[in-house]
């Protein structure tokens, strides 16, 4: 039963990734695109955690943790670039 649930939730998250990609492609402003990227990385963490549950392995959490940290830093860097036209002042 659990594997069925995991499959169904993975499909939902995959659909969410597709929807976010649509927003990433159509924009219209660059702030929208940053927001879409931000949501994309959070959703990919969800997908990786689901994969870890499916294969009953906890190796996947290391990568989830890495994506969480790098994702936040890159969102901050992109927003700052938009704000100031420079990342490191």
């Amino acid at each position, binding site marked *: 039963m659990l594997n069925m649930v995991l499959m169904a939730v993975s499909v939902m*998250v995959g659909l969410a990734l597709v929807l976010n990609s649509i927003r990433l492609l159509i924009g219209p*402003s660059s*702030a929208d695109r940053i*927001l879409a990227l931000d949501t994309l990385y*959070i959703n990919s963490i*969800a997908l990786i955690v689901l994969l870890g549950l499916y294969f009953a392995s906890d190796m996947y959490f290391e990568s989830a943790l890495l994506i969480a940290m790098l994702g936040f830093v890159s969102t901050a860097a992109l927003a700052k670039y938009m704000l100031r036209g420079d990342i490191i002042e």
Partner: protein
Amino acid sequence: MLLVMEVLASFLLIMGGVFILIGALGMVKLPDFYTRLHAPTKATTLGIGCILIASMALHALRGDGLSIQELVISLFLFITAPVSAYMVAKAALQRRTAFLEGTRNADMSEDILERRAPDSR
């Protein structure tokens, strides 16, 4: 006991999936940037929180011991979500991203950019 835990975890997983999907749906359908900002900061954050709690319960159930990684990830996401929302919103204001027509106090954005008190209304 085992079955109850599994049902509970499945419920949390499905709730998480539904919230993530609703967040993504909001990203596509809401009318302007500032309303779209609400979808990922709330729905997606709660969705991933649900999935991580379910994952923690299931890993404990399989006898791998209590794994702290999920807790660290969800704490990290809950702390960073408001910060990144704030940064992106500020960047959008700076670029004068248009508000939806009929937004209340849309003229207040000038005060926000200058970081001064709102004009006495």
